[in-house]
């Protein structure tokens, strides 16, 4: 793939369709984030057992894997996106309750929440205004994600707190890169043109930044 193949002058039609894609993506992303936050609050109130996070993640993965690709081009896809984000939001409940039980838990959760918002808005704003092509980051980001997942797999069976912190730090950097990558694809009319799939990708990046920040702030807060 040669980036010089991208036409320098884009037709009005192409610019309009890109703007529509950006508008649809950010509108849906806002909706899914609010919905997900609501589900997280409900889950915190109900306080399901920690195992429920896993069940919710399995459900979300199943929908992303088997249902969303078949429904992404129809109205049903919208419901699937809300089901995925609702499940993942609900699955956050036990984690949030764990941090809320810490002496400065409220501060940690609020800082992670606000920090995630600032990181996402800052990176999106940067990619949208510079309109730079970050597609060269693709291979690096996906290779990094695979390494992080393999490290997480090892971390499950090795009792190494430092490894968990290193993974959280790596996740934040990789997801920051992913937001730049995905947003630049959106702006430069490359790659994915289905706003449901773009929204899910950005949602997962935001969720990963939030949970990684929670873990980092929780570990570094000095509260045992």
């Amino acid at each position: 793939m040669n980036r010089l193949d991208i036409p320098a002058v884009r037709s009005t039609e192409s610019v309009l369709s890109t703007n529509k894609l950006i508008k649809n993506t950010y509108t849906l992303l806002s909706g899914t984030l609010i919905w997900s936050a609501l589900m997280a609050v409900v889950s915190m109130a109900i306080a399901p057992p920690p195992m429920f996070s896993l069940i919710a993640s399995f459900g979300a993965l199943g929908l992303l894997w088997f249902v969303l690709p078949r429904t992404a081009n129809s109205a049903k896809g919208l419901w699937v996106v809300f089901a995925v984000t609702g499940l993942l939001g609900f699955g956050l409940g036990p984690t949030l309750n764990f941090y809320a039980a810490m002496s400065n838990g409220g501060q940690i959760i609020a800082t992670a929440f606000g920090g995630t918002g600032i990181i996402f808005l800052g990176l999106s704003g940067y990619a949208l205004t510079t309109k730079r092509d970050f597609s060269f980051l693709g291979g690096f980001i996906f290779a990094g994600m695979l390494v992080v997942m393999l490290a997480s797999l090892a971390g499950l069976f090795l009792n190494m707190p430092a490894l968990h912190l290193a993974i959280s730090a790596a996740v934040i950097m990789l997801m920051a890169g992913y937001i730049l990558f995905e947003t630049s694809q959106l702006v430069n009319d490359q790659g994915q043109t289905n706003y449901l799939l773009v929204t899910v990708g950005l949602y997962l990046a935001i969720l990963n930044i939030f949970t990684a920040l929670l873990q980092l702030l929780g570990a570094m807060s000095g509260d045992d």
Partner: protein
Amino acid sequence: MDWVKILSAVLIIGWIIFMWPRAKHWLQNSPKAQAGDWQAALLPIGAVILFVIVLIMLVR
């Protein structure tokens, strides 16, 4: 063996398999960076790292 760990491992493997086709595509088809590209990407990522350090200092 803890069932939660086993299920978590299955979930991580599931995510790896789910991500693999897209990862393979980008590993094979990523365009080469032009002059200044890495600088433009590392600048905001560096800013994110500094911001996270500030957040950590806020909650300590």
